[in-house]
């Protein structure tokens, strides 16, 4: 059914919290996502011409890099983006067949590949570009929040998180229940002022993004420009002495 589950008090809302301050843009989460999902619930994730000039493929997680701000305050921000498992997912409501659905028990948005007709309307209805079409299977695919990991009792408990979260070397990705105000992720969002993407559209994403921390002001006595080191000349011994004495 494409009707959304009625909201319950204390509703579980599983999702991700992504820290834009610590993300280093290494793309490890995207690669890990691709690797896991190429063999997981939504397998296969096809690639076309993977070794040619016009390689294309289905990815559930893509890392964009932005420059934000001007002058002293400008910064480079790496921006991972996957399905936000919205509370008002229009992608589900526009689905004519009921293949797209939002789970009542944890809020995860999924596609049933056996009833999807591949009309692509859901990908038009998603403002975030979370859904990608599998040309080979003729159905739409998307991030499952690694539903085949997070409930998988064959995995060690510590492994029962989405692949992108388990692999992040900068610990920029956090997974948990955003419906519980006392969960670790909810407290992180509150402490760091986590934001919704495109809140003006009213999709109410569950995933939150932690903005980069404000830039620290330079120390008062910090040099405004680097002075060239004193000219020591070509003498190896003097250069060594200069280095040793400068310590």
């Amino acid at each position, binding site marked *: *059914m*494409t*009707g959304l589950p009625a909201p319950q008090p204390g509703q579980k809302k599983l999702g991700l919290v992504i820290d*834009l301050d610590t993300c280093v843009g290494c*793309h490890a989460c995207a690669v890990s996502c691709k690797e896991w999902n190429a063999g997981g619930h939504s397998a296969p994730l096809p690639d076309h011409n993977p070794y040619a*000039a*016009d390689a*294309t493929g289905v*990815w559930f997680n*893509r890392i*964009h*890099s*932005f*420059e*934000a*701000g*001007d002058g002293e*305050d*400008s910064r480079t*921000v790496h*921006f991972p*983006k996957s399905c936000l498992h919205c509370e008002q997912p*229009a992608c*589900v*409501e*526009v*689905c*004519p*067949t*009921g293949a797209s659905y939002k789970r009542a028990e944890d809020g995860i948005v999924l596609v049933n590949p056996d*009833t*999807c*007709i*591949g*009309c*692509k*309307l859901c*990908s*038009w*209805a*998603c*403002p*975030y*570009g979370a859904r*990608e*079409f*599998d*040309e080979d299977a*003729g*159905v*739409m695919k998307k991030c499952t929040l690694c539903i085949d990991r997070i409930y998988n009792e064959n995995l060690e408990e510590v492994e029962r998180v989405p692949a992108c979260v388990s692999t992040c070397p900068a610990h920029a990705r956090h997974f948990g229940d955003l419906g519980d105000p006392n969960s670790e992720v909810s407290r992180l969002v509150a402490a760091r002022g986590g934001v919704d*993407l*495109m*809140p*003006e*559209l*009213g*999709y109410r994403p569950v995933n939150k*993004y932690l*903005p980069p921390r404000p830039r620290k002001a330079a120390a008062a006595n910090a040099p405004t420009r680097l002075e060239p080191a004193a000219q020591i000349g070509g003498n190896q011994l003097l250069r060594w002495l200069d280095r040793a004495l400068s310590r």
Partner: protein
Amino acid sequence: MHPALSVIFFTTASGAGYGLLALLGLLLPLGVVPADRWFGVAGLALGLTLVTTGLLSSTFHLGHPERAWRAVTQWRTSWLSREGVAALVTYVPAGLFAMLWVVFDRTDGINSAFGLAAAAMAVVTVYCTGMIYACLKPVHQWCNAWVVPNYLALALMTGALILNALQHLWGGPHRLVGLLAAASIPLALWLKERYWVFIDTTKPPSTAATATGLKGPVRLLEAPHTEENYLLKEMGFRVARKHAVKLRRIARAAGFAVPLVLTLIALVTDGAAAKIAACLAVGSGTLGVLVERWLFFAEAKHTVMLYYGAVEA
């Protein structure tokens, strides 16, 4: 947005078909179109063929056309599903209307009711088609109040042009149909112009800053991948946008100006000249609407492009 040819063909053909069907259902009880059963055969066959081929062509762009029947199940939330249901339901009064008129030569009484019901359902179906686009918040050029009136007016216009041509070919043209066709053109053009003014002068609600939650001017430094992907192919279409001004001129001329002149010529002349003018009006109008529909997709900008360097969408 990428203009899929099957969808452009579908909306143009089915729009004209439903327009024709609605006008037949409405005007036959009023005695404005010939009650001759062979006129019924021609008009209804044309209308139902346009509608049916349109619907079939819309299934060509599906990944799984054989599952298309599932699309009628989610009418509670999905405008696409509602369109499917409305399209199927329309066949019932339209089929009864056609049977009584063509087989039993009944053009009054109960068949007036079937005609009016078919007309109402045709309007509902085209309304649903428009709402499929108008409900998509990520596309500012679609999610506005001008889209549905445009779909309805263009269906009326193309249907009226076809009905006018058919009447002229039948030899007994009723001036009212000619006047209706002529009047529908400026109405449709005015709505199209209002739509273009709207998309040219209003600011879309989302920007690269709201899409990322970042402060200050936000510029894309690096795209996620060096190559194209599904999102860019489906949502990042730019080819016709750069020719938008020229294409709008073509749509105005072929879709509205030429059909209006030809329809007026058909109104004031008679014989072969009127027949030819009324038929050419259909050809030109159809071409114009195809260009208009192409532009409707090509000028639509999706918010996902904010993650690929667009400033606002």
